[in-house]
């Protein structure tokens, strides 16, 4: 019997091509969108899962802000790990990382910068149960001056040779260490938050010389370490957390230690000094909502179309009943059709997914895939799709099988008011979803524009930052004087406007910015509560990046003790309730145990981290150190000489002065904009999926109207014969839809207002959701609906009435 069902279904679908196309296409889009989003979400949720990861926690610092503690720093002290292990028996082990954004490896003439690696305790492989390709987990990181390389890095350094026990030089901050390779590990997977391309044994810090004696001792002063702890498997995490919060291992009331599960970091943590920019659970929630909305929309479409269409098939149903078919058989027939349709849609959806994934990966730099190997983990997703499609097939099946045969055989059945209401309800639901998504898209787009157009207080155009590593055994002062030469030579280039040296710059990571507490204001007030952020630059810096002064001026290099000069920002003044610049300008601050930091200027607030974060209170110091060489290029000169050519000239100068070095550069404006990448990607996802949702909804509407118009052909003909105008007929056919959309709009406004306010909570600076956002969404929805409907009703209204009446 199923063979017959299948046969009828296939022939029916082939015969009604438009209907089948709309249905299958709508479903395929819905399923493909759903699967794509689910693949993404699954990946986002898969972060930091390894054997025993459920017992691994990251320790971090809470800071006292006012009178509550807030998550203040993802980093901890070098004493944190050992103390936690000693104080709490539940803590079985700890591993500390000192993270390097990059280290320069030197092997003979092979000099290159390798990003992302750490000093790590020997316990690393005891806690992070990642595989090791060469070496012994227990001992690889035990001895000083040893390193474990990622496979790729090992190949970069040693080619096809066995790297085991070979030595390589590493430079950081101009300081060299010679490391022996004791292990090779696989490249870090994409779904861990802490990606290390190399691990250097922690005790190498004693021999490397990048820290001073004071910093090497276990201390509570320098919180530059990431600490992860492993707890006994029966530990009550909430209890341990409370104990750690309550304990005062550090004996400091202004801050406290806290812990969080490593598995939660990627989606739930967004603290200062994260290893990498994490994901966001809000985004995940929104995307899941969108995924479900789209999928459900396509099912509603299916239900609506097939129910409407089933009226046309009343006769067939009647014949079946008369021939002895009973309800279960009729429902099975309808379900078989639904499943057939959905199967075709699923196949198309999978093809779409496979085609779109590489595009998506290309765009986001992710590496998502749909592989047979992990098909098992997608089973729930497919289960859900299957469940939905049975459910979606059920309603038309019930409607279809409920006709009494005598009535059904009379041919066209007038829809019962109940059925009509259901279908109206479905249309309203579709438009409700569409309008909500439209409002969402508009708000997200508006917010991203708002962020990008927010005055950031700097001008980062045409500035590049050079940050190569000088690989020489020269003393620091010699390197610094060479930098001086380089600076003046670069300034002499025709296309260079200005050069300055800075520890960090707007849009750079937290890494090169120090956070501290404890400052004494000129009036003698001591603030030990609030964190301030600090970095050092040369006097030209402010002018070069376009930071403006509210009062005072930049550092004066000729002044005695010029290295004790500082500049503070408005946020710093606000924090300490300083209302008049005179209270601080020219006066001395006390911090870091130094009593005479003289304030030479107050700068207007600028965004160091983009406008997602509020402006942080800053103290910028005058210090000569070789970090980033910022170069402001001249627009017109660059356009004349060509960009590549200019960069080549800069590189040439660099190499002349530092023959043994690495060379690389960054565009400041690009790097700054990159901070919005995740939000932009989210915005694009929102736009794309809204577009798809609208497409699905209009397909449904198109199908539905083409059917109702056919049904009302005779009515239209009669009306026209009796003098109705084309406009009048169109109004007749369109007015229903306008009512439904109005209803959908009224319901959509509060829901979308609530949802989008939730989303905006994640931003320090938010755009406002003005009334026109809703108006626009409503008008777009209405316009799309009317266009779709009018296409059909216009045709009907224009038809020759004699023709349409004759057909009956």
């Amino acid at each position, binding site marked *: *019997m199923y063979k*017959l069902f299948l*046969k*009828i279904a296939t*022939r*029916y679908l082939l*015969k009604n091509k438009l209907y089948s196309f709309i249905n299958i296409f709508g479903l395929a889009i819905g399923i493909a969108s759903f699967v794509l989003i689910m693949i993404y979400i699954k990946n986002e949720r898969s972060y930091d899962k390894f054997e025993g990861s459920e017992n691994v926690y990251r320790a971090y610092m809470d800071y006292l802000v006012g009178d509550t503690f807030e998550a203040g720093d993802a980093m901890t002290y070098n004493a944190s790990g050992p103390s936690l292990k000693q104080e709490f028996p539940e803590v079985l082990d700890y591993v500390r990382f000192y993270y390097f954004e990059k280290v320069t490896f030197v092997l003979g003439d092979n000099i290159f910068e390798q990003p992302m690696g750490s000093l790590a305790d020997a316990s690393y492989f005891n806690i992070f149960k990642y595989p090791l390709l060469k070496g012994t987990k227990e001992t690889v990181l035990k001895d000083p001056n040893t390193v474990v390389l990622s496979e790729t890095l090992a190949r970069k350094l040693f080619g096809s040779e066995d790297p085991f026990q070979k030595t390589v030089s590493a430079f950081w901050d101009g300081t060299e260490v010679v490391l022996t390779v004791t292990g090779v590990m696989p490249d870090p997977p994409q779904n861990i938050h802490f990606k290390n391309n190399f691990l250097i044994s922690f005790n190498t810090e004693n021999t490397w010389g990048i820290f001073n004696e004071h910093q090497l001792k276990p201390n509570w002063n320098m919180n530059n370490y990431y600490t992860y702890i492993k707890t006994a498997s029966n530990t009550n995490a909430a209890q341990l957390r409370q104990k750690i919060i309550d304990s005062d291992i550090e004996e400091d009331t202004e801050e406290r230690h806290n812990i969080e599960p490593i598995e939660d970091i990627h989606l739930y943590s967004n603290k200062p000094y994260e290893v990498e920019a994490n994901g966001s659970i809000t985004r995940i929630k929104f995307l899941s909502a969108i995924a479900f909305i789209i999928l459900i929309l396509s099912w509603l479409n299916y239900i609506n179309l097939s129910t409407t269409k089933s009226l046309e098939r009343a*006769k*067939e149903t*009647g*014949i*079946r*009943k*008369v*021939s*002895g*078919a*009973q309800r279960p*058989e009729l429902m099975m027939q309808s379900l078989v059709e639904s499943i057939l349709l959905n199967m075709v849609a699923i196949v198309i959806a999978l093809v779409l997914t496979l085609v779109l994934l590489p595009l998506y990966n290309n765009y986001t730099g992710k590496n998502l895939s749909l592989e047979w190997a992990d098909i098992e983990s997608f089973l729930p997703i497919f289960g859900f799709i299957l469940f939905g499609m049975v459910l979606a097939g059920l309603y038309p099946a019930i409607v279809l099988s409920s006709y*009494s*045969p*005598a*009535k059904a*055989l009379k041919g066209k059945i007038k829809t019962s008011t109940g059925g009509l209401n259901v279908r109206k309800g479905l249309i309203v639901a579709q438009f409700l979803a569409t309008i909500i998504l439209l409002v969402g898209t508009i708000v997200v787009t508006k917010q991203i524009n708002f962020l990008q157009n927010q005055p950031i207080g700097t001008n980062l155009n045409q500035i590049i930052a050079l940050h190569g590593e000088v690989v020489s055994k020269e003393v620091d002062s010699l390197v610094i004087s060479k930098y001086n030469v380089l600076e003046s030579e670069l300034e002499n280039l025709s296309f260079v406007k200005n050069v300055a040296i800075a520890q960090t710059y707007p849009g750079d990571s937290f890494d090169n910015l120090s956070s501290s507490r404890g400052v004494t204001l000129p009036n003698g007030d001591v603030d030990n509560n609030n964190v301030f952020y600090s970095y050092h630059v040369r006097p030209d810096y402010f002018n070069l990046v376009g930071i403006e002064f509210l009062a005072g001026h930049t550092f004066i290099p000729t002044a005695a003790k010029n290295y004790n000069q500082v500049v503070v920002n408005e946020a710093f003044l606000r924090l300490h309730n300083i209302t008049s610049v005179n209270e601080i300008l020219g006066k001395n601050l006390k911090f870091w145990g130094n009593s005479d930091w003289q304030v030479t200027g107050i700068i207007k607030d600028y965004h160091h981290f983009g406008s997602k974060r509020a402006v942080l209170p800053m103290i910028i110091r005058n210090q000569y150190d070789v970090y980033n060489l910022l170069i402001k290029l001249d627009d017109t000169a660059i356009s004349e000489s060509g960009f590549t050519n200019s960069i080549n000239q800069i590189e040439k100068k660099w190499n002349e002065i530092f023959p043994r070095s690495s060379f690389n550069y960054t565009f400041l404006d690009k790097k700054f904009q990159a901070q919005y990448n995740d939000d932009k990607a989210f915005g694009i996802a929102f736009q794309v999926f809204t577009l798809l949702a609208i497409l699905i909804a209009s397909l449904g509407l198109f199908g539905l109207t083409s059917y109702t118009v056919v049904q009302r052909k005779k009515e239209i003909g009669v009306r026209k014969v009796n003098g109705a105008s084309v406009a009048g007929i169109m109004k007749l056919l369109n007015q229903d839809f306008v009512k439904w959309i109005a209803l959908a709009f009224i319901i959509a406004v509060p829901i979308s207002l609530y949802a989008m306010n939730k989303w905006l909570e994640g931003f320090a600076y938010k755009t406002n959701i003005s009334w026109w956002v809703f108006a626009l969404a409503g008008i777009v929805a209405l316009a799309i609906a009317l266009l779709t409907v009018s296409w059909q009703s216009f045709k009907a209204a224009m038809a020759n009435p004699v023709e349409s009446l004759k057909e009956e």
Partner: protein
Amino acid sequence: MLLQLNNIFKWVNSGGQRVFLLKDINLEVEEGEFISIMGPSGSGKSTLLNVIGMLDAFDEGEYNFMDESVHTLKEKHRANLYKQYIGFVFQAYHLIDELTVYENLEMPLLYKNMKSSERKAVVADMLDRFNIVGKKDLFPTQLSGGQQQLVGVARALIGKPKLILADEPTGNLNSQQGEEIMEIFKQLNSEGVTVIQVTHSEKNAGYGSRIINLLDGRKIEG
């Protein structure tokens, strides 16, 4: 006795008023009869036929079909009853457009859960009997009206029913095609199948052994 209707009433409510479609119908049909139902348009002929065929419910009265009291049966049992004993022929043929002639004939057998080999034999037999073997792979829309009705009759007969109900079976056919169908009915009747047909044609009514006249839902004697 094949079936018996006692004091059957059927009505619909329209504007708060009862509109009677069937009024106090009493009817006994013996096995082997050939009955024609006649009456003006709107008199309730189709309604009565549908009630007899259990395709439509009635509001009052008793209906016994082969010693089963239909009025007390659940829908499922009623469906089982007519599926087993009754074949329907319609004015508009009512073939399924998506199925070939062969498949249309096979369909009722599927709902009887007949084995595939048996089905093949039965359908082949029927195709043979109606001389439509050559048409078995065509779809209904590819046939003439007369041919479609032949298939319709064949389908009604395929389950070997005791009773054939035909609602204006020749209404859409020309006279020659109509005659052909009526001859088939006559032949069937002589083989022992009971036939009840609705017709407007005196000539067609003449094929039967008894005529029932309806007016405004009421049976008029005469």
